[in-house]
């Protein structure tokens, strides 16, 4: 069965940022691993997440649903007025994933960065 590896790191920008370096395909079989890990970090106090997608070659609709669930959990209070997340951002998606993000217009909802420092300082 496909597995998803997630490495977690803490960075300090203007605010603390938790960086999740994801490796593997994010699909129907693995999206829950990502969601559970993110939920666990949020419950433990993380309020800004940066997902490093440099090691992800495929992301299906289940992956995008997980991104939405994470966004919602990060912004429980103001989710009714939510048009773009300020607490979940994406870093360095591969060409294949970037293409799907663009097709679904997910770049309207989540900021995408190529540079890690720039991403961390944007929170």
């Amino acid at each position, binding site marked *: 069965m496909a597995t998803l590896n997630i490495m977690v790191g803490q960075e300090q920008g203007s605010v603390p940022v938790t960086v999740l370096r994801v490796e593997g395909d994010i699909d129907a079989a693995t999206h829950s691993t990502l969601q559970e890990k993110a939920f666990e970090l949020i419950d433990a106090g993380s309020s800004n997440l940066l997902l490093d997608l440099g090691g992800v070659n495929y992301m299906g609709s289940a992956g995008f*649903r997980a991104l939405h669930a994470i966004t*919602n959990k990060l912004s429980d209070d103001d*989710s009714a007025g939510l*048009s773009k997340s300020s607490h979940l951002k994406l870093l360095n998606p591969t060409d294949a994933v970037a293409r799907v993000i663009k*097709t679904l*217009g*997910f770049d309207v909802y989540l900021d995408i960065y190529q540079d890690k420092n720039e991403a961390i300082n944007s929170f």
Partner: protein
Amino acid sequence: METPMTTTVDKIETLRKCLFLVGLKEHVLSELAARAETLRVASGETIITRGEHGSTMYFIISGRARVHDGEVTWAHINKGEVFGEMAVLDSEVRSATVTTESDSLLLSIGRDVFFDALASDPDAFKAVLRAVLQREREIVHEIKNRSTKLLSYQKEMEIGRRIQADFLPGSIPVIDNWEVAAWFEAAREVAGDFYDIFRLKTSPHVAIVIGDVCDKGVGAALFMTLFRSLIRASSLYGYTDPTLVESTLAETGSQNTGGAPADVLLNSILTTNRYIATTHAGSSMFASVFFGLLNPENGELIYVNAGHEAPMIFRKNGETEILDITGGVMGLFPAASFTIKSVSLNEGDLIFTYTDGVNEAKNLDGEQFGDERILETAAPEGNNTETFLKIMLDGVRNFRGEAEQSDDITMLALKYLPSIQSN
């Protein structure tokens, strides 16, 4: 596994209580007990493995085991029950794997010991045969029960499929000077794709909608009915919130094409998105939707493309234009904004919209049909829209070959008929 001490009396007691050995005489049970071995097995140990040869059957003195194939559990075996007896009787390979679920005490009897003991009593084989047949009757009964349940599920799915078909347009409106064709093919009984085409009540405009709800199966089908109904209802009977529409027009710099149709379009998209993103936030279900309003009298099309595969316009002069996204997918972010764009269709032009069952159709090598092949396959010139879709569908099916259809295929094509020149 280790060998603990168990008295012969305990062993006889276990064997006597087992339904598989009911009817065996006392001296046969004594002989079996005398030659049986006791095993203590820790929880989680696999005793027999599917596909392997084996000549031993096991009786559970205490503990519990499960019969399974990988992760799928078929049955649980408890104290006093037997497993592994089938391979002992017919010498075939093990039909399933058995793993203990708790620390267990087992009694093991080999094939030779078993048949030796049975040979000492002419009635013993009859007793075992009866027990085997009894088991077979139980299995037949169980299969009948499961088949009945399966049939009733299939019937429910068929009802679902028929009801869902009712959420697609029953007929396509006849539009002067336009030719319209649609194709819808679900990959399973129920689908997440949808399309719609209907006239507005307040203007001559025709609404063209195509969408794809994420995921597959029953969940996608439920949301398909929701997206389709909200879009249609808010377009036809919708209350227009002027402040919502105006602020979004200003915010996105949308081309306000003036008046009702643009308001209807934006109101419908915003209302549908906001409703689903708010009411069903916990489901994280979304849809990509292309929604256009066509003025059939002059070919003007205003549209919102919410994260959907870009529709293609095949111009009469051979050029192709694609209608890129003007917003993200619908149903996730309540305050999302969507931009309205417009394009003019001229006589002889054809617009083709589709879902990812077309461009993402895969062949056995895992290759995708892709946008390039859509462009290569498209034959707008000299064909009516029905033939155009048929050629596209044949192209997808030929490319797919023996590979299974993994996603719903929905296509919609409209062609602006060239007017007949008269002198």
